[in-house]
C-alpha cells in the first residue's frame, strides 16, 4: 500500500481504519453535569451548544414568520395592528439573521467539524471559543430584553432617521447585535488561526476538505466586515443618546451614509451565510456521489473570490436610495461578477455527480434541493442587480422572495443536509431515513408554495413591510400563507424524528457514508480529544477512486506525551 508520508523515509506507525467503532467513552459522556457543558472548552460541545441555541432561535423566528403570514392572509387587519406587525417582521428578520443564520453553519457545524477535519485536537484558542459562545448568549439576552421592554420596529436594517426617532428599544437591540458581532469575530479569528497553524502533518492546503476552504473564506469576511457593523451600531447608539448628527439629517447628518455603513457589513454578511453552505454541499455531493470532487481548486478559490468580490458590491441595496448615479452603475457592474464564481461551483458540483455512484440519502436529497432552490435565488439576485429592473423590484416582495430563496432555500437547506449528514457523528445515532425524505419533500413543496407567489406579486408591485395591501394581491398572499403552514409541518416532523433518534435511534457506525475526510476517521461520537493520537494524512479528502479498505491514518512521532487511552489502537508498522 502506498501511504505517502511527510516524515521523509522514516518508518511511520499506521492506524487502520475501523468502520464499526462505537466507543463507550466519548466526548458526550467524558464529563457530565450542566457545568461540564457550560464551561467546556471542547469545540465539539461548544458546537452542540450553538446548535441548540440556533435551533431555538430558528423556531422563534419561524413561528413569528407564521404569525406574519397569518396576518397577511387577508388584506384587512386580522390579528394585529400595523405597529405590532412592524415589530414582528423586524424581530423575525433580526432573529433569523443575527441569531440564527450567521452563527448557524460556522458556529454550530463549523465548530464541531473544523478541528476534526484538520486532524487537530481543538481550535487554536479553546477558551476564546467558549467566550464567543458566551458573548453570543449575552447578545441574545440583550435582544430578548429589548423584546420585553419595547420591541423594535425599524426593520432589521435599522435605517436612520426612523431608527433615531422611533420610541422602541433600538438601543437594547443594537447593543445586542453589537455584542453578537464580537462573538462572530472571535469565531472567525479562531478558525483562520486554526486552519493556518494546526493542520495535521500531511494536510497540505491542497488536501483540505472544501468545507474548510469555505470556512476559511467565511472567516475572512467575518473578521473583515463585522467591525464595521460594530462601529455602525455604536454610532447609531450615539446618534440616539448624544445626537451626534453623523447619520441623522435633522442634525446635519446623511442617512445614505448610514446605508453605506450598514450594507458594507450586511452585504458581505450574506456571504457569511451562504459560503459555509457551499462548503457543506461540496462535502455532501462528493460523498454521496462517491466521486472525487470535480475542480477542487476551482471550488476552493471561488469561495475566496466570492468573499472578495462580495465585499465590493454593497451599494446594490441602494440603487434608488439617492446615492450618486455613478456609484449605482459601478455597484451594478460589480454585483454581477459574484455570479461567475458561484456558477463555477454549481457546475463543478454537477460535474462531480457525472459518472458518480449516487446514493440519494436524505443529505443528498437536501443537496439537490439546495442546487435547485439556490439557483433560483441566485439568478433572481442577478435580476435585482440589473439597475433598470431593480428600480421596479426594489423593496417589493420580489426581494423578499429572492432572499428567502437564498437564505432559506440555500443556507437552511444546506444546513439541514449537513445536520443529517453529521448527525451520526455528533450523536452516535442514525436518524430515520424514511421520515427524513418525507419531510424533505414536504419542505420542498411548502417552500416553493410560500415563496414562488412572492416573486409574482413582487414584480406586480406589492411592496414589502406592508401589514395590509390592496385586494389585487390577495390570491398570491393566500397561496403563500398556505405554503408557510406546510413548511411548518415539515419542520415539526424533522424535530420529532431527530429527537426520537437521539434517544431511541440506531447506533451509528463511525463512517456510515464511506466518506474520506478526517472527521469520519474517528469514532462516532468522537473521543474527547477527537483522535487519541496525532494523525498523519496518507490520503486526500476526496480519494473516492480508492476503496475505503485502503484507507489508513499515520500516527505522528512527535505525538509527545499524549496517552493513547480509550479503545486500543490497531497498529501496524509500515515503511513509508
Amino acid at each position, binding site marked *: 500500500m502506498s501511504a505517502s508520508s511527510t516524515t521523509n523515509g522514516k518508518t511511520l506507525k499506521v492506524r487502520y481504519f475501523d468502520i464499526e467503532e462505537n466507543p463507550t467513552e466519548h466526548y458526550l459522556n467524558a464529563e457530565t453535569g450542566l457545568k461540564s457543558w457550560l464551561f467546556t472548552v471542547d469545540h465539539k460541545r461548544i458546537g452542540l451548544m450553538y446548535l441548540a441555541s440556533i435551533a431555538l432561535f430558528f423556531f422563534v423566528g419561524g413561528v413569528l414568520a407564521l404569525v406574519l403570514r397569518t396576518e397577511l392572509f387577508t388584506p384587512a387587519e386580522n390579528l394585529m395592528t400595523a405597529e405590532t406587525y412592524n415589530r414582528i417582521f423586524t424581530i423575525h428578520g433580526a432573529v433569523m439573521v443575527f441569531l440564527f443564520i450567521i452563527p448557524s453553519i460556522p458556529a454550530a457545524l463549523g465548530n464541531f467539524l473544523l478541528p476534526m477535519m484538520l486532524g487537530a485536537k481543538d481550535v487554536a484558542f479553546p477558551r476564546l471559543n467558549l467566550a464567543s459562545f458566551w458573548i453570543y448568549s449575552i447578545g441574545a439576552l440583550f435582544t430578548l430584553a429589548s423584546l420585553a421592554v419595547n420591541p423594535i420596529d425599524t426593520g432589521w436594517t435599522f435605517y436612520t432617521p426612523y431608527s433615531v426617532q422611533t420610541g422602541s428599544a433600538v438601543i437594547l437591540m443594537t447593543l445586542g447585535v453589537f455584542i453578537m458581532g464580537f462573538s462572530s469575530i472571535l469565531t472567525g479569528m479562531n478558525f483562520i488561526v486554526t486552519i493556518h497553524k494546526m493542520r495535521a502533518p500531511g494536510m497540505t492546503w491542497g488536501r483540505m476538505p472544501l468545507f474548510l476552504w469555505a470556512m476559511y473564506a467565511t472567516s475572512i469576511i467575518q473578521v*473583515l466586515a463585522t467591525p464595521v457593523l460594530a462601529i455602525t451600531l455604536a454610532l447609531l447608539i450615539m446618534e440616539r443618546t448624544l445626537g451626534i448628527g453623523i447619520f441623522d439629517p435633522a442634525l446635519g447628518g446623511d442617512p445614505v451614509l448610514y446605508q*453605506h455603513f450598514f450594507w458594507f457589513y450586511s452585504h458581505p454578511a450574506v456571504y457569511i451565510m451562504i459560503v459555509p453552505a457551499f462548503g457543506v454541499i461540496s462535502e455532501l455531493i462528493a460523498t454521496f456521489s462517491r466521486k472525487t470532487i470535480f475542480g477542487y481548486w476551482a471550488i476552493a478559490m471561488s469561495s475566496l473570490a466570492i468573499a472578495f468580490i462580495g465585499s465590493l458590491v454593497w451599494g446594490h441595496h441602494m440603487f434608488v436610495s439617492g446615492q*450618486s448615479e455613478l*456609484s449605482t452603475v459601478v*455597484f451594478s457592474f460589480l454585483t454581477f461578477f459574484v455570479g461567475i464564481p458561484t456558477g463555477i461551483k454549481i457546475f463543478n458540483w454537477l460535474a462531480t455527480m457525472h459518472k458518480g455512484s449516487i446514493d440519494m440519502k436524505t443529505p443528498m436529497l437536501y443537496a439537490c434541493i439546495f442546487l435547485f432552490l439556490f439557483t433560483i435565488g441566485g439568478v433572481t439576485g442577478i435580476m435585482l442587480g440589473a439597475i433598470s429592473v431593480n428600480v421596479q423590484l426594489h423593496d417589493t416582495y420580489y426581494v423578499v422572495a429572492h432572499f428567502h430563496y437564498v437564505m432559506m432555500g440555500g443556507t437552511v437547506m444546506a444546513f439541514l443536509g449537513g445536520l443529517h449528514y453529521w448527525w451520526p457523528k455528533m450523536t452516535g445515532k442514525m436518524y430515520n431515513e424514511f421520515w427524513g425524505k418525507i419531510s424533505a419533500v414536504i419542505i420542498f413543496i411548502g417552500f416553493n408554495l410560500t415563496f414562488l407567489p412572492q416573486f409574482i406579486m413582487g414584480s406586480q408591485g406589492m411592496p414589502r413591510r406592508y401589514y395590509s395591501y390592496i385586494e389585487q394581491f390577495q390570491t398570491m398572499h393566500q397561496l403563500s400563507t398556505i405554503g408557510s403552514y406546510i413548511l411548518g409541518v415539515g419542520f415539526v416532523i424533522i424535530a420529532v424524528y431527530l429527537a426520537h433518534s437521539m434517544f431511541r435511534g440506531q447506533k451509528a457506525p463511525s463512517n456510515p457514508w464511506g466518506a474520506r475526510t478526517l472527521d469520519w476517521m474517528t469514532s462516532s461520537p468522537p473521543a474527547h480529544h477527537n483522535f487519541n493520537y496525532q494523525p498523519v494524512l496518507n490520503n486526500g479528502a476526496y480519494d473516492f477512486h480508492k476503496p475505503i479498505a485502503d484507507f489508513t491514518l499515520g500516527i505522528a512521532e512527535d505525538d509527545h506525551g499524549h496517552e493513547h487511552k480509550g479503545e486500543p489502537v490497531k497498529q501496524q508498522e509500515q515503511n513509508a
Partner: protein
Amino acid sequence: MSAHHIIPMKTLISTTVALVVLTIVTVAVFYLPIPAPFDVVVAILLASFKATLVGMFFMGLYYDEKFNTVVLIFSFLFFLVFVGITLLDTMFRDTGISVW
C-alpha cells in the same frame, strides 16, 4: 526561531528618535504654506511612514512571519476600498448621469 527575535536595543532607540523627529517635522510642515490638497497628502505620507516604522520595528513585523505583514497590508487595502467606493457616491451626487 524568528518569532522570538530579540529586537536590538539600538534599533528600538533609533526608531524612537526617528519617530520623535518625524513628529516635529509633521508639525513644522504644518506651518509651511503648502497648497490645499497637498498639505493633507504630505501629512498622511508622514503619518504612514511613522506607522510603518512602528509596525516594522516596535511590532517586529520586520523579523516576523511575512503572513502577519500580509494581514496588516490587507486590512489597509480593505479600508481603502471602503473609503474609495463610498466616495464614488458622496462626491458625485450632483453630477447627473448625462454628464458622463
